[in-house]
């Protein structure tokens, strides 16, 4: 793949990512520790360290359309192990958010993209996760209402799925976090 690096575009993209990430892309020295320990690396089209380098070089299109940013499960193994203390998992979150705002729809990971939106909406309105609402909305949006339905009774029995949600008391603070980020 050939990429023409446009200095201004590169700087704009890098500064957008760095502002949201609160970290410097140049910190990464491409050792590959993140990719070495990533549990979902085998499914990714670009390894996490490639995503960092491509972002630094301003390669917006391939980065925002990559499978990698959606496949990341935010397990934070990478961030925990990074010898330079770089927010590797964080950059995936930031890139997901930028892609969402730009209206870029992932061609391969549609369901994950839907889940991302539903999950954040859920957190935004409740301050925490209300599982029943989350599952319901996700199933409705992906039009697979009855998938995994048989798991519900067992989960209810074990107290994993509550029938009524409760908001955190400091919901205003949660709203502020979202406002700040947006």
């Amino acid at each position: 793949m050939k990429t023409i690096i446009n200095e201004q575009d590169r700087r704009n993209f890098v500064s957008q990512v760095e502002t949201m990430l609160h970290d410097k892309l140049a910190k990464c020295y491409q050792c590959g520790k993140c990719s070495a320990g990533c549990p979902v690396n085998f499914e990714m089209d670009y390894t996490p360290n490639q995503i960092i380098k491509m972002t630094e070089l301003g390669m917006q299109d391939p980065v925002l359309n990559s499978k990698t940013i959606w496949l990341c499960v935010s397990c934070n193994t990478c961030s925990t192990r990074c010898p330079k203390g770089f927010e590797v998992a964080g950059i995936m979150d930031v890139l997901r958010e930028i892609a969402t705002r730009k209206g870029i729809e992932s061609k391969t990971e549609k369901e994950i993209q839907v889940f991302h939106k539903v999950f954040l909406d859920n957190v935004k309105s409740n301050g925490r996760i209300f599982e029943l609402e989350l599952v319901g909305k996700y199933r409705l949006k992906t039009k697979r209402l009855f998938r995994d339905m048989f798991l519900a009774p067992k989960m209810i029995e074990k107290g994993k799925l509550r029938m009524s949600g409760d908001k955190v008391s400091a919901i205003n603070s949660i709203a502020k976090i979202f406002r700040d980020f947006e």
Partner: protein
Amino acid sequence: MSRIGVFVCWCGSNIAGTVDVKKLTEEAAKIPGVVEAVDYKYMCSDPGQNSLRNMIREKNLTGVVLAACSPHMHENTFRKAAVKEGLNPYFVEIANIREQVSWVHEDKERATYKAMDLLKMMVEKVKRDRAIEDVRVPLTKRALVIGGGISGMQAALDIASGGVEVILVEKEPSIGGRMIQLDETFPTLDCSSCIMTPKMVEVSQHPNIKLYTYSEVENVSGYIGNFNVKIKKMTKSVVEKDCTGCGDCWNACPMHKNVKSEFNINLSERTAIYVPFPQAVPLVPVIDRAACLHFKKGGKCVKCYEVCGPKCIDFTIQDEIIEEKVGAIVAATGFDLMDNSLYGEYGYGKYKDVISGLQFERLLSASGPTEGVIKRPSDGKTPQTIVFIQCVGSRDPEKGVPYCSKVCCMYTAKHAKLFSHKVHGSQSYVFYIDIRATGKGYEEFIRDTIEKDGVVYLRGRVSKIYQDRDKLIIRGADTLSGNQVEIAADMVVLATGVIPKKGSDKIAQMLGISYDKYGFFTESHPKLRPAESSTAGIYLAGMAQGPRDIPESVVSGSAAASKILGLFSKSEYEVEGTIAGVNKTTCVGCFYCQRVCAYSAISKEEIKDRNGNVIKVVANVNPGLCTGCGACVNACFSKSIDVKGYMDDQIYAEIRSLAI
């Protein structure tokens, strides 16, 4: 009649575990000429040495054979013990039954048999030993340093401060070498000329240093302690002692647009009478006769002479040959850069804005052609984007050289850093293969350049550079993301590989020191004798040995100096007596020996009759140069050369002893 004492050492169980030392001792006592044979647990211990001394004294021995460890270990120990009893040290021989027998064999019976053979050989050898005296060579306590760069200057200063007279020869009109061309130095960013000029002045003012600039060493003969050096002092056409360095002459010179400045690497012009840079030491101009109108137009132009206050310009001064005697030499001839035009794809020479790292250094320098303002050569605009390409010629066994030039990673990072400091909002890209930053504070410097100054590093090489209007388009690869990339830049800086100074191979041949296939001088031992050349009395310093940075060059200069001061701390230089000797009666003067001698130790000697007529010419061995390697012995057709201590009759007797 020989009276030989044999000592068999157990070396604890090292030898006794594999060799039957008792049996060996009994057998040794039966060899004709052996007076007594004894064995002992540790011959090198004080009691062991004492038993050796006692037997020499009591039995009036003429020779000693030790069956023990390698002579590398304790030959000296036992020789010293023998000397104390009045025996010539060369009457002590060692049969190596540890490294050559017990450590490498398992079968005790056969090992003992082999040990016996080695012992018998040594007994036959010692029977035929002659007393050998060590050779003492007188020392001329003066040193010559070739090259006035930082390592040569450091060597000269250290030797001179040790109270020894030094002759420093520099080819250029000023000392300072490559370092004075640099702007700031990594990783501390101290200004090169600020730390360099005081040192240069110190060199020129030191009472023990005799400085010859604009001069070349033309011939070196002799050997350690006694070198004769011919120095060609090229004419400056200026009477040095009268010149005040006022600058009237070069301001008056009409030839100010025709000659490219060597010091600024073609980025500016100089006059025909010139000093290479304002802080030159000595601050005395030279006339470049190839460019000067006076010499080109038959003496018409005398403008510089007219304006010269002290009238120190003299067009008639000729080159001069100066002869000096020295006892030791430091070769610090420095380095050059490879030819960038090897790589057509980078467009060096085709596009004005593709320059070398050293040229960029001049652009950064306050004393450079742009007075420290970064302007690109084509149109004088300040560049906003620069692409740096590393490993141009280095690490390229196909087109360039296979070795790493060691300094490029660091100076490229420094260039990118200084560029970001000087031009705010600018951007640098660096194409690299690996980053090699192994010095003190180097890695931190690189990371700082990337993280604080925002320099973008791309791991990969550049395939093509072409011009698009006033931009250079650089196409390369970023292997980390797996992409081909294209960057539009205003300027490209090539980190060109380092090669030995042009003509350093000639210097090496003149000095008789060895050099590798690239032309770098080789050390006597790469790890344990890094300051010494292959020839005694000649020491090495700086980049002439291979790529290195400034601190390493300074260290190597000091190392060479300390070796020389150590050499000069004795009244005479002592050489082992086991050197070659010529039988002048049988020598036919074919000088085949001279051709095979790696140390230039053999010269021609005329044998004259009483009327002074030359009867014949024979080979003569210089004891100061001979190492006793024996190459000449093999080459001699008339069997006229022998190495003392290893004479033919001894070797034959050793072999014959095995047949008995």
